[in-house]
Every structure is written in C-alpha cells, then in structure tokens.
C-alpha cells in the first residue's frame, strides 16, 4: 500500500466517519443528559433528509436547507419530547425506549404514505460537485465539505455546552437535577431543549448524507444500528467518545474495505466486540450511567 493510497483510504474513512459522528452525537447527547435511549434516532435522520430534499426542491438552495432542517426536525423532536416522552420520566429506562421504538415505526410509515416508497432525488450542490486535487490524490469536494461541516457543528456544540451559561445549566442538570431544580431552574425546559438539539443534529446528518446516499424511507434503519455501535464504542453518554469512536469506525470500515471488502460491514461490529472485551464501558464511558 503506497502513501497516496493510504492517505486516500484514510480521508475516505474520515468522511464516512463524519456521518457516524453526527448521528452518534445526537444519540449520546440525549442519553447522557436525559438517560433516554432514543430508538427513533434513525428516523429523525431520515426526516432530516426529506425536509432537506423538499426545501431544496422548493427553493433550489442547498444552504437554506441546512438551516431549515435543524429548525424543523428539531422542532418535531421537541414536540415529541413535550407530549410523548415527558409523561414517561421517572418510570425507568425501558418506557421511553419502547415509546421511541414505536415512534420510529410511525414516522417511517408516515413518510412512506406522504412521500411514497420510492425515495426522492437529491443532487450534489453545483458548487461542491466534482473533485479537488489534494496533491496526493483527487478527492470529491462534497466529502471535504462534509468533514468541514462536521467540525463546525462540533465546535458550535462545544461552545454551547462549555462557554455559555445555558451550557452550564445543561451540564449541571446532567450531574444532579435535584440541586439544579432547588436553585430555581426549570429542568423540564432544559431537557426539552437538549432533546431538540440531539434530534436536530440527527436531521442535519441526514441532509448532509443525502447527496451521497440518496433520500428514501428506509435510509434511517441502518443508521440507528451504526449510531449505536459508535455510541457503545465511544462510551454511552460521552460526547468526546462519540466523536473519536465515529471517526474510528469510519476509518476501520475504510481500511477493511481495502484489504477484505466482504468484511467491511462486519468490521464495525468486530471493533465493538474488541472494545467491549477490554473496556466494557466503551472508550470514554463513565461508571454507572445505566444504573
């Protein structure tokens, strides 16, 4: 394997990993702060792609769809939290799990009924079509943009959580909700917003993946599995873990594709098994998040 081939395979893996990072991030954020395993996550990813496709269809503007999607999908997520998930708080982890599982099935069928079973086209925006010369190899512009966009979203999320007073409340709420409530913070609102943000990131991931994978009702199904693998590898509830593990899974997939293409899909599960053998809580998992 020559150096340029190695680098090309690495970059391909990072671009793949970017999508994994984004879907796992939303899942991990919601789990880490609300202790809710969101089984509808893959369907919010799919909704993001559809909302993006329709925005693109109506306006012809890809950039606008990047703004509309998180607002609309995040909004739908907040409605789900407020009216469906909230009544189940304090009833154990399995209640919201079953609820979101059912919610996912309903969302999938709704999209099939409204938009058809066949999917809708989504072309790469003109500005990002084609490849760019990276000295060692040619690489598609859109995938470079994907890596860049993921970095921007990560940075924004980091600033929100670490540098704003709202982030302080969110983090405090995750540590000890009773104390935060005693201090006069409406913890219900915090959870509403966190759920919305987590779902909005899944939606953005969907619209970002659309020019590569296409838009169709079942697109979220494998994504849920991938997001879980990444979350488990990174450690349930750990945001840093989701980022590192997402890129790791992408790169593992990419290099396995080079040496043993038939095993590419299996590679992420092997990675997960290996990590769990040596670190049962994942790479960055905390003790007792599920207890």
């Amino acid at each position, binding site marked *: 394997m*020559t150096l340029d081939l190695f680098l*090309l395979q690495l970059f391909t*893996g990072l671009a*793949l990993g970017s999508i994994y990072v984004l879907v796992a991030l939303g899942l991990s954020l919601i789990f880490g702060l609300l202790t809710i395993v969101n089984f509808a996550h893959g369907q919010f990813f799919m909704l993001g792609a559809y909302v993006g496709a329709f925005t693109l269809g109506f306006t012809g503007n890809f950039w606008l769809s990047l703004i509309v999607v998180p607002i609309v999908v995040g909004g739908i997520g907040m409605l789900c939290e407020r009216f469906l998930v909230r009544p189940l708080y304090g009833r154990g982890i399995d209640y919201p799990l079953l609820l979101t599982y059912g919610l996912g099935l309903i969302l999938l069928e709704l999209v099939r009924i409204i938009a058809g079973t066949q999917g809708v*086209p989504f072309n790469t925006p003109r500005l990002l*079509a084609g490849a760019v010369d990276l000295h060692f190899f040619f690489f598609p512009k859109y995938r470079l943009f994907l890596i860049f966009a993921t970095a921007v979203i990560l940075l924004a999320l980091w600033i929100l959580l670490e540098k704003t007073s709202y982030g302080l409340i969110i983090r405090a709420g995750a540590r000890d909700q009773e104390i935060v409530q005693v201090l006069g913070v409406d913890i219900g609102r915090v959870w509403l917003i966190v759920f919305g943000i987590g779902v909005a990131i899944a939606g953005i991931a969907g619209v970002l993946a659309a020019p*590569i*994978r296409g838009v169709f*009702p079942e697109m979220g199904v494998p994504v849920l599995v991938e997001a879980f693998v990444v979350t488990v590898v990174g450690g349930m509830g750990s945001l840093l873990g989701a980022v590192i593990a997402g890129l790791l899974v992408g790169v593992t997939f990419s290099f396995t594709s080079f040496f043993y293409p038939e095993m590419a899909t299996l590679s992420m599960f092997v990675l997960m098994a290996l990590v769990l053998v040596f670190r049962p809580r994942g790479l960055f998992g905390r003790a007792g998040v599920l207890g």
Partner: protein
Amino acid sequence: MAVKLSRRKLLATAGAAAAMSSFKINVARSQETPIKIGFPVPISGPYGTEANDQVRCAQLAIDWFNQESPRKAELVVRDDKLDPGEAATRTLELIESDKVDFICGSLSASVQLSVNQVASKRGVIYNSISQSDSINEASDFTKYTFHEALNPHMTAGAVARYVFGQAKGKKVAYLIADYAYGHEMQRGFRRVASEMGMEEVAEVRHPLGTTDYSAFFPRIQAARPDILLVVNFGRDQLNTLKQATDFGLKEQMQIVYPVLLDTQRIAGGFDPFEGVIGGANYYWTLEDEFESAKRLNDAYRAKYPDQGVPSAYGALGYAGVYGILKGVKEAGSTKTDEVIAAMESMKYDAYKGEQYFRKCDHQAVQSVLIIKAKPESEMRNQWDIFEILDTQPADEKFLRTCEELGHKA
C-alpha cells in the same frame, strides 16, 4: 329393442341435458369469477421504483386480455419486501386464501427461488420476471416454473462480448454485490473474459445493502483497469454511480453494468450515468422497430400520462403476465397442465419481437440490448436517456445447454 332404443335415447337426452346444464353453469361461473394472477413484488425497499412500474405494466397486460375475453383477468398485488421469507408467506396467502390461478413476479434471485418453491409445491404456474441462472437449473426447476426475464448467463455474456470486443485494453476489474445475482453475473462475465483473453486485475465484493461505496474505490483505482464491471441493482446502482462520478472513476475507466436501469437514471439525476454501458431487456425506442413495443408504449402513455414510458423492468412485468394470459388464450382453459402445454409450444410477441419458452427449462428465448447512457446535452427529452448500441438476437445458442443445466435432453 324398442325399449333398448328408447332407453338409449333417454340416456342420450339426459346426458346432453346434463352436459348443457353443466356448460351453462361453467359459463355463468366464468363470468363471475375472474382469472386471478398473484403478483408479489418488492414495492417497498431499494427496488421499489422498479417494482412499482412492474405493477403498472402488469395491469396493462390484464387490460389487453380483458379487451376481448368474456372471462376477465385480475391482478392481485402483494409487497414481498424483497425478503424470501416474506415472499413465501405472501405467495402462500395468494394461493390459499386469495385463490389465485397463477403467480407472476418477484425482483431478486433469492426471492424468486422462494416464490418458485411455494408455487411449485402447490402446483401453481409461476412466471418469474427477475434475473436468475439457478431457476433454470434442474435442481430448482419444476414443470410449473417459467422464466420470462433474461438470465445472468445470457445478459452478462452479451454485454461482455460487446464491451470486451470494443475495449482499449485488456485489464478488467469487478465490483460485485456479494449475493446470488452478483455471483451469477460475474460468472457470466468471467466465462467470456477467459475466452477473449482479458486480464482480471481486481475483484471487490461489497456487502449487499452498502450505502457508501467510496471505501472500495481506491483498491480499484490502484489496479488501473480499462474496464470496471459493476454488478448491483436498484438504488444501489444509482448510489454507486453517483459516488464513482464524484471520485473521478469514469475518467479513468469504462464503467459497465450487466443491467443498466432506466428507472434509476430517471429517478436520480442524469450525470452519474453518463457514458456508462450496460445490458437491458427493453428500451422504449424499440417501438420504431416492433409493433408490439409500440402497442405497450401507447397503452402505457394512455393509462399513465405522467409516467412517461414503460421501464425495462416494468416491461418484464407486462411480458410476464402477458405470457401466462397468452397461454390461457391458446389453451382455451385455465387448467394448469393445458396452460403449461400451450406456453411450451406457443410463439409470442409480447413487447419486443418474437419469443418462446425453451422446452427443457422454460427460459424465454429473447434478444438482449446493449445500451449506453447518453450525455445530457444530447438528450431530446427526459425519457431520451439511452442509445441502443447493439442487439444480441433471440437464439438458444446464447443459453447454457439443457444438459449443462441438468435436464434430460
């Protein structure tokens, strides 16, 4: 003697009366119960675009039959979800509770084998409309099995002979979906490749259901092939070509598909397909050459004005149902054995010139088109997407022999 005579007369009269009345009952029954054709296809899932067009076209074959037949035919559509288990259940349901007379459909090698098993066990004629080699082989074939679709051997063979003959170099690489369809097509390509002295420089088998193919490309690019033979279907085909275009593969090699899908080019934008060569059972411009193609296209345009023209796989849905109903017409009956006998001996022109079912394996002997995706600048309208480069004629010499398939000659 007189007594005898009168007895005989009596018997004859009674017999005639009995025959008359039973005939009357038959006529009455046939007018109220339609001929039902069960149609399991993967309406949801990655082959949904193709399956939906198969349903549209199959309905046209029903309309064609009903125009002149007193006993009407009816299509009973079921979603097999592209899953062999689901398909077996739906087929059983079609036979047991919907009481269908015939089965036609399915859009995957493994699904059609499962439908074939269920239908054959119940003694119901099944006309398959998707690619498979093994359905022709003695181990899977029964007298109830008919195969209207092309099979991988004849398709890959036709495409390979054309493409290898025109190639600039000898180096060939494969990107193959890792399941029966991919393996059978690759076997067809390899057979011709070794005959024509091609050199295989890379083989990548990707798991079925891959959404992102980019990680497989560097290995292929590093092998520097002249021709890349890609075998996958439905939405996977569009995604592969989209991503291959992004990575610049088309500038480095000629991409070739055994079956190039009009449905996907129309559904997913035109750029990704530009310059790609492949095989097909049908393309609508055949109407310039064949009356039957014109008849199908016109019926389609009239009934589905916003859908444009029938797709190649849609046309198979038409031909599959047409073949069965033509058999019913020829036999003048819906009795299984009589319809089988009629289908085995008939010549029919469903949609692209004369075809017939080979006696030993019930494979439809038919032409294979070699097509190339036009650049967008040369398209006159959104349906004008391919040009026909060549046609392999309908001839048994392009099929594996009956002996090779394990049938007694």
